[in-house]
């Protein structure tokens, strides 16, 4: 199965990793603890999960613009996700990904949130200026 999206931040070659999927919007300021690299929002459907080394797939961003700096802090503490895949194009998440050198695809069909689950292995490939997400 394949999904396509818009490339927000490029990468070289193929990124392969396990998905971490949230159907909700994330406010990186507040919802995420960058030092421990986990989701601390008690209302999140991925509460307690570690972001490190996973492909974070979620609906979009919400909340404070300081969220972009929190994404940067995740990277600095070595807790950044391998890549970010979103349904919506949120300026805060885009800012964070670009400033932190995290590969990112946005504007992926919302169906991805129903079809893939946390733990599913994904491959991200650049193809004809589009970001391709392949379920392995």
């Amino acid at each position, binding site marked *: 199965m394949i999904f396509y999206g818009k490339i*927000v*931040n490029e990468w070289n070659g193929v990124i392969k990793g396990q998905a971490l999927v949230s159907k909700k919007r994330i406010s990186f*300021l507040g919802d995420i603890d*960058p030092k421990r690299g986990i989701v601390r929002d008690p209302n999140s459907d991925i509460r307690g999960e570690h972001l490190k080394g996973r492909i974070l797939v979620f609906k979009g961003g919400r909340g*404070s*613009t*300081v969220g*972009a*700096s*929190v994404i*940067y*802090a995740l990277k*600095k503490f070595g807790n950044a996700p391998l890549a970010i895949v979103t349904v919506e*194009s949120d*300026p*805060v998440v*885009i*800012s*964070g990904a*670009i*400033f932190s*050198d995290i590969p990112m695809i946005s504007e992926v069909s919302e169906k991805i949130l129903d079809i893939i689950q946390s733990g599913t292995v994904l491959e991200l490939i650049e193809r004809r200026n589009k970001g391709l997400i392949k379920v392995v």
Partner: protein
Amino acid sequence: MELTGEEEKMLDGEHGEWVSKAIKLLIRLGELSGAEKLVKINRSHISGVSYKTAGDATLDMLKDIAKTGVKVKTYATLNPAGMDADKWQEMGVPEYFAIKQRELIEAYIMLGVKPALTCAPYFFENRPKKNEIVAFAESSAIVFTNSIIGARTNRHGSIDVLAASLTGRVPYSGLHLDENRKANVLVDVKENELSESDYGFIGIFVGGRLNPSDIPAFVFNHRPIIDNLRYLGAALAASGAIAMFHAIGITPEAKTKTAAFGNNEPVEKISVGREEIKKVKEELFSEIDEPDAIFIGCPHASVDEIKKLAMAVKNKDLKEGLRFWVFTSRFVKEKIENEGLLNILENAGIRVYTDTCMVVAPIEELGLRRIITNSLKAAWYIPKFAEGKVIVDVKPIDDIVDLYLKS
């Protein structure tokens, strides 16, 4: 998006890693807003300065950026910090906060940003010209710049305004274009005896009924002063994320109703008077008789406002145990000091602080629980930031002087 040769070089990293990231971010944001090109800017105003809102995450990121030696390409000024740089101890700001706050300001200075530390840079420190395209963050300065000066800025956040400052570019879109600056909502203000706080109430009421892309045009049956329009704009931005309004016959792009609306027909007509003002006051704010503190200066007080306050409090004394703080910029404070007004305020027991304001100072850590202010922007944000630990009442300056200063 079409890029110039210079912009291609920025993207390719010829100006360093951070300029490359910054321009990439502006290109992506431009694609989202349908911009076909970037446009050069010479001026910007940066938010994300108070340690209370920016936190360690922003501080660490700014330090990393500054370490590379990159400098801003615009004349860039800073929004207020979380404390008066000189009088933070007198304000009661904890030392750990002061240390972090200084580091944050230092990082911005290393980037070449001017530490104006005011939310009202348009008076003196950083005033755009009419029709000039700029990148301003700080919602009250955005609405003032577009509406009252007739310069052009979109709504920027702390990160994209930093990117705009590092590159001297913004995506050409939104309020930069004539056709997007026309009104689409008509607001009829029925009263003519309005206090500065009433303008704020009207802003909260109208902002709450609009979408962020709406541009209301106000019809007044009198002529408000600039400070009244400032209070109106700051409140519209607080409750409705509004970036621009017109006041027909008053603001520069609304000489007539036709000029304000262009080819648009009003999609909505709103009427505001005493009843609506009363409703907002009752729904959103508390009744406070005995406040811990009185705050004036959100947005930062103008010279005119402080003059008016000084005349009202001359030879009067603040009631015991009360704090009465006025927030403004260093530039304005120096002016009022030279005119002998600062002395009048201080003799009445009023303190004037610069570099900070009631919204971004850590007031929940200062032991203040009941606040009275004349500003609807402050009244809107303070309880939210303090997560309900602080309650706020709104009264105009005239009432505050009558109630809390004795002859």
